[in-house]
Each structure stands twice: as structure tokens, then as C-alpha cells.
């Protein structure tokens, strides 16, 4: 589904990603972990096509298509979804308008008919039910006056409505209490199936108790320095990132 080769990217002229290699197949859940400033969020933003990040080298192929060449809206329509670390507030635009516009744009691009108002409402009722959201939220402006937890929940709702092939979750666990974390995780677990994939970007192991990854990668200074199964996350939790960094130093010194 996703193939990243030697990806290098700059933010404001500074190189943050220094050669990422990663492959994600359908049905897989990957977690990218790493200390602050390691480039985790940069990777998620580069994949979604944030204009503030410049790809300087390497390749990103999504379902065989060169992602770097695609505008962010086209990436979304192809099936890439980024759940933001800091979701944006859009006063004056209701959640209903926002979701309906997004859903129909994605459908149009993929040659599907637009959702009728009835279809849309049924879909919305089903998906917001999974996340235990008050149906009243639909007439409120996007994220305006939402608590941190509500905003993250709204990101997951958008994901469930759009049904992307690849979901990138950027620090979706940050700022969530345990109850909100459980709800958000259950949304992701409802979403994942053998045809789609999830990339979790997180600082903490906590989220991985609820969304169990198939692969864990450790990002440090713009490179993946270690990959493993879910047990790697537990090891990181126990020993901290320094353990790997020391490991890495040893490897480099050899």
C-alpha cells in the first residue's frame, strides 16, 4: 500500500527527515515512536502533503501512485487521511457542512454518487454512535468550543466517515484522559480491516495497549533506528529512548 524510500524532508530549510525507509501493507498497523523532535509528526505531515514541509529526496508510493506529485486534497481522495495532533477550529462552518462536503468530494473523485441527505444522516448516526458523540455536535461549528478530547474524537469521526485506505494518526493520544483514549481507540479498532492500514505516531506506549500494532519503529533524528514487533513498545516504555540511542551509538562505533 505505502512504500517510502530514502525520504528526506525539510522544514523551513532545516532537514528533519534524513532518509526514511518504510513499507506498509494492507491489513497492518504500524506505530512510529520516538522522542520529541525526532521527526514523527513531520513524517505524518509530509505523507498528507502539508505545504510547510519540503521533500528534498526520496520517493513515496501509495497504491502505486507517486504521492509527492499529488496535492493534499487529491491524496485525501486517493485514501490518505491524517488525524491532526492539533485539529483546526473553523467558525461558521458546521460539522454537517464540513463532513458532507468532504465525503462528497471524495466520492466524486472516485466515481461514486454523492450521498443523499438521508444516506449521509444514517452514516453519520452510525459512526458518531461508535464514538458516543452527542448528535447535537453536528450543527456546531467545526471544533469550535470543543475540548481537547472532543476534537480528537471528531478527527476519528471524520476518518470513519471518509473510510480512507491509510489512516495516519498524529499523536492522537496526546491530551486524552483514559476514558477518551478508550473511545478513540475503539473508533480506530472499528475502522481497521484487512484492506486498510493504520500508522500511529506516538510518544507513549499507552495508546498501544488499546490499538495493538503489528510493527513498531523507533524514529530518532530523522531516521528509523530500530524496528520490531509490539514487544518493542513495551521495552521502550521500560527502558526509555536512551537505551536505543546508546544501542545505536554502539552500532555506529562498531
Amino acid at each position, binding site marked *: 500500500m505505502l512504500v517510502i524510500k530514502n525520504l528526506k524532508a525539510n522544514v523551513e530549510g532545516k532537514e528533519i527527515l534524513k532518509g526514511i525507509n518504510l513499507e506498509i501493507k494492507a491489513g497492518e498497523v504500524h506505530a512510529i515512536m520516538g522522542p520529541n523532535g525526532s521527526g514523527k509528526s513531520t513524517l505524518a505531515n509530509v505523507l498528507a502533503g502539508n*505545504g510547510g514541509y519540503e521533500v528534498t529526496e526520496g520517493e513515496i508510493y501509495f497504491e502505486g501512485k507517486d504521492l509527492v506529485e499529488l496535492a*493534499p486534497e487529491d491524496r*485525501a481522495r486517493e485514501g490518505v487521511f491524517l488525524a491532526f495532533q492539533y485539529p483546526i477550529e*473553523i467558525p*461558521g462552518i458546521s460539522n454537517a457542512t*464540513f463532513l458532507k462536503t468532504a465525503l462528497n468530494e471524495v466520492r466524486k473523485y472516485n466515481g461514486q454518487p454523492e450521498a443523499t441527505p438521508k444516506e449521509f444522516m444514517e452514516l453519520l448516526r452510525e459512526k458518531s454512535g461508535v464514538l458516543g458523540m452527542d448528535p447535537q455536535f453536528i450543527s456546531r461549528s467545526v471544533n469550535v468550543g470543543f475540548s481537547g478530547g472532543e476534537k480528537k474524537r471528531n478527527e476519528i469521526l*471524520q476518518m470513519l466517515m*471518509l473510510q480512507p485506505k491509510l489512516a495516519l494518526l498524529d499523536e492522537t493520544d496526546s491530551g486524552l484522559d483514559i476514558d477518551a483514549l478508550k473511545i478513540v481507540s475503539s473508533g480506530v479498532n472499528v475502522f481497521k480491516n484487512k484492506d486498510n492500514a493504520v500508522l500511529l505516531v506516538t510518544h507513549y506506549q499507552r495508546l498501544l495497549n488499546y490499538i495493538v500494532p503489528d510493527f513498531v519503529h523507533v524514529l530518532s533524528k530523522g531516521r528509523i533506528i530500530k524496528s520490531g514487533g509490539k514487544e518493542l513498545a513495551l521495552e521502550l516504555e521500560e527502558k526509555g529512548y536512551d537505551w536505543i540511542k546508546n544501542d545505536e551509538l554502539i552500532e555506529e562505533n562498531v
Partner: protein
Amino acid sequence: MGNDLLNMIELRDFNLPTTKNEDWKYTNVAPIMKYNYVLGTSLGNEDHLSSVLDEYFFQDFDYYKVVFINGIFAGKLSDLTGLESGIIVDSLSNFQKNNSELLSKHLNKYSAIDNGFNELNNSLSSDGLVVYVPKGKVVDKPIQVLYFNGDKTENVLSVPKNLIIAEENSQVSIIANYHGIKGKEYLTNVVTEVYAGKNSIVDLYKIQLEEENSFHIEKVQAYQESNSLFNHYNFTFGGSITRNDINTCLNDENIESHFYGLYLAHKNQHVDNHTFVDHAMPNCMSNELYKGILDGESRGVFNGKILVRRDAQKTNAYQSNKAVLLSKSAVIDTKPQLEIFADDVKCSHGAAVGQLDEDSEFYIKSRGIPQDIAKSMLIRAFAADVIEKIKIDELREQINHLVFEHLNRVEVKNN
């Protein structure tokens, strides 16, 4: 309209302000003076206009209907059926005949002649809107006033003089809706006086949708008694040069005033808003929120003056003005002006100018929404906090529609 030479106005006879005048520094009125104007007069037979003008009214809510053609009251086109007795909505000339005592008590009592445009209005105006709401009365529906200006063959000058009198414990909502005819350049030069008596509530909406080759000048001067509330909502879409002076004098205690403004400009439009809140007495509150959306080669000017006089202790005065520039050539000049002579006050002002936020645009696009709709959503978002202040529900979405129509951008609606 006949070309009556006696009606030809020589603007040079009036001492119109120049850019040397500090209050007109950014607004050059020379383009207005390029034309010779005839004074708007009654059309005589206006019946045929009735169906034509209907489309200019904001719809989907009940209102009392008033029409002015080139500044002159068009009684036959107006509909005040059902207005409670005692409340008067009429032309200035009729009011003068029937209620001269009341008129002389209020007319020209609040607005001083500050510049040549006021003088022009004062010496030439023969008509305008009068709304009189006696003590304790509430006008049950908004009064929607269409000012329809201009002419196909003549440069017309319209000089309506409006007077709103809301006595003690009364309440009224007025929508002043300015439109014009596609034709020759024209000048609309208005003076509006508002008297808000004790404990009264006056909502005054102004929606300026004049033609692109027109000039529009208005001065609003409010005078508020104790415990009164005056809300002014100012939406500018049309006109080649627009200048609004919105002033209120808070001359007793516990008065509240709100000034909301949204102005849009594109091409070569020039929009200048000057506001002045005069806090003369203690325990009053004023709040101002102005936003501008500027595209093309347009230019915006905002000057917000707040004066807190020595006696005006415990004043709360807030002002915020923001502008978003949609093009590289658009310009905004903004100046907050706080003069505070009392020591126990809370005053704040903020100004911000910028482009549409790129992070927000990325967020919207990352959901599959194309760039043009993403920008429209951000435009709506920017204007939202002003538009949300409109108390008439049905008017809100119609104003939003005008925002996109005027900027020639894809419309985003909530449904």
C-alpha cells in the same frame, strides 16, 4: 429625470475634505468631484417600479417596507400596514408637516456639521426617513428601508437625512439597504441621527450594495440616554469609494453600544470606516468588532476612536479590528485611537492584518476538499463572528451569500 439646470450641484461650492485633513488622510475624494450631479428629485409616477424593486429586499422574514428613490420617499412603494398606532415611520417632509414640534426637538440636535459632506447634506436635503417610536412601544417587525439610487442618463446626488427617535423603554430594529441602478456615476451622501432614549433598544443594520461606479458617504450620529442599548451593524459590499462615520455619544450612565462591521472590497474599491465612541459618563460599556476582506487592488481604512472623558469612571471599552488580504495588491490602513482621561477604566484594542491561515487551509484540503472551497470556508470562518451578531436569523445566511457573490467565489452554505 429631467435635466434641470437649477438642480445642477457644484461640489466645489462645498468645502469637501482633502487628504490634508487628518480624518481623511487615506481617502481621496477627488474622483467624486469629477462629475456634475443633479439633485435627486421625485420620479412622479413610480408604480411600475414596485415589482422591480421587490428583488432588492432581504426576504424570508416579516418587515415593514419603506422605499426611497434617490433620497426621496416613495410612499406608493412602501407598505406600513399593521404598524401600531402612535409609531410613525414616514418621510422627513411629511413628518415636518405633521409633527414639527417633535422634529425640531431632535433634528440636527445630535450631529454637528463636521465636514463638507455633512454640509452638502444639510443644505440640500429635503427628505429622508423618520422613525418615531413613542415611550414604551416596541416595533413588532424590523423596518426594512430600500434606498435606491442613481439614474441611467444623469449623475445623481442623493442626500437623505434620516432621524430615528426611540423614546424611553421603546425598541426598534431598522435595516437600511442601499442599492443603485446600473448607469451613470452617482453619489449618495447620508446623515443619520439616532436618539436612543432611556432604557431603549435600537438595532440599526446598514447593508450597502450600491453600484460599482457609485460613491457612498454616510455619517451616523447616535445619542444615548441612560440604560439604552444601541447596536450598529455595518456591511459594505458596493461602491467605488465608501466612507462611513459611525459615532455615538454615551451621555449618561449604564449605556451599552455595539458596533459591528464587515467590509468587503475587490478591484479598485475603497472602503473607509471611521468610528467614534464618546464615553462621557461612568459605568458604560462599548464594544466594537470590525472585519475587512480585501481582494484585488482594493484599499481599506479603519480608524476607531474611543474617548473616555474624565467623568467616565468604570468604563468598559473594547475594540477589535481585523483584516484579511486575499491578494498581494490589497492594502489596509488601520488606526486605533484611544484617548483616556479617567483612571478607573477597562479599555482594550487589538488590530490584526494577515492572509488566510495556511495551516487551516491544509486541514480542510486534507479532507479531500478542493482549494477554492477551502478558501471560501476560511472566508466564511473569518466573517463568522461579525455575521453571527445579526439578530435576524434569516438575514444571516443572506449576508453570507452576499460575501461570496461579491468576492466572486464559490459559496459555502450551512444546511
